[in-house]
């Protein structure tokens, strides 16, 4: 690694995003220190995925800043999408492709390590697009992990999965956090947020309404919007 300085904390200041005359994000600011799982929650259209995408540099904000503590040559944050993008290749080739694109040294070994770490060795030569939903999501996480990020963005990592696969994914996330990976994830599954995260960012209509410890947020939300959301009165 050329540069060992941590990219964290991540400082997001006054994010604003407009499209087609609509303001989708408005003045979102937060800071993300190293470690832990942070859940971004809120009703549909609150701007959860958009926030992740802007942080991951997939989308440019209309205003505001995304500032990293360090900016090493190689991007040290990775993202897993709600619908995992599976290249039309084998499982192992999907890993190798990402590693080669990233310029990771010794991609073959790293790919093997990732397969082993996520229990995918038996599936190595299978066409990735023929895997089950849970296996695809696992491969997507393995592929992101292989890139050695400090921070992983997970966008609704289990929204397409059955309960069994969801449990598996949650275990994986807990394991990653235990190893020191910082995780920023969106979820519309409040139970999942409660189970996994230590901190909650509650967005509504493009604004960051609450930024709180998970236990406190669920026990005593400070805003009326959060209370309505938890009571199921906000559409989502």
């Amino acid at each position, binding site marked *: 690694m050329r540069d060992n300085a941590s990219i964290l904390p991540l400082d997001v200041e006054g994010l604003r995003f407009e499209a087609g005359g609509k303001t989708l994000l408005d003045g979102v600011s937060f800071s993300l220190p190293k470690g832990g799982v942070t859940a971004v929650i809120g009703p549909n259209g609150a701007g959860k995925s958009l926030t992740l995408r802007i942080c991951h540099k*997939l989308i440019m904000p209309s205003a505001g800043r995304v500032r990293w503590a360090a900016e090493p040559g190689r991007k040290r944050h990775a993202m897993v999408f709600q619908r995992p993008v599976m*290249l*039309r290749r084998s499982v192992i080739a999907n890993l190798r492709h990402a590693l080669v694109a990233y310029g990771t040294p010794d991609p073959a070994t790293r790919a093997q390590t990732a397969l082993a770490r996520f229990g995918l060795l038996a599936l190595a030569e299978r066409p990735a*697009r023929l895997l089950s939903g849970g296996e695809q999501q696992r491969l997507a996480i393995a592929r992101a992990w292989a890139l050695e990020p400090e921070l992983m963005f997970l966008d609704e990592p289990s929204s397409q999965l059955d309960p069994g696969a969801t449990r598996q994914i949650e275990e994986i996330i807990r394991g990653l956090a235990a190893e020191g990976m910082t995780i920023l994830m969106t979820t519309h599954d409040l139970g999942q947020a409660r189970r996994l995260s230590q901190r909650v960012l509650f967005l509504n209509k493009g604004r960051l309404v609450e930024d709180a410890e998970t236990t406190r947020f669920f026990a005593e939300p400070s805003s009326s919007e959060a209370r309505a959301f938890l009571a199921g009165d906000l559409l989502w």
Partner: protein
Amino acid sequence: MDVTSAFGAALSLIFNLDPQFLQIVGLSLRVTLTAVLLAALIGLPLGALLAVTRFPGRSVIIVLVNGLMGLPPVVAGLIVFLLLSRSGPLGSLGWLFTPTAMVIAQTLLVLPIIIALTRGTIEDLWSEYREHLTSLGLTGWRAVPTLLWDGRFALATGLLAGFGRASAEVGAVLIVGGNIAAYTRTMTTSIALETSKGDLPLALGLGLVLITLTVAINAAAYGASRIGARFAG
């Protein structure tokens, strides 16, 4: 009419392995396959680039390329003819009335098809892969190799379409090749010549051989891409 004698002529052409006939078939295949290969080398990356980049004038180019898919072969032939004629800008190359001229003309005919079909295929694939590839830092031309590789089975269809157009056309190769016996005479120009000589059974016989070859090549490519596609999922 002479359909039976046409079949007879076709069969005797094939089974007697008439050297002149083999030479004609060989030249036709060589010219067309070279043209398709060249057009693929040029058209696949350009079509993919058109799919993944945005720049002013892009839609003009797309409309132009789509329109050129219908370029009449004689017009393509005429353009190449005027370029390569001794009195034209590239006359000193001495390429007119050679197989090379035919390759250029057919490349010109096939290129728009390959670019347009590649753009369509890759655009679909790009909308699916875009966020993942962007996340990996693969944008613009850097995304092209991944997309071409993953779209290879769909892209084969475009190449086949190009092959079909090139192998079937007569106007362009006739103009720039000159239909010189044993040198630039292809299956299609032979068919035109035999028709004009009134030897309709021989012309139809050659036509049957051409159809058979085209179908065989298509079938082989189709089979291969089906097997491949099943693997890639």
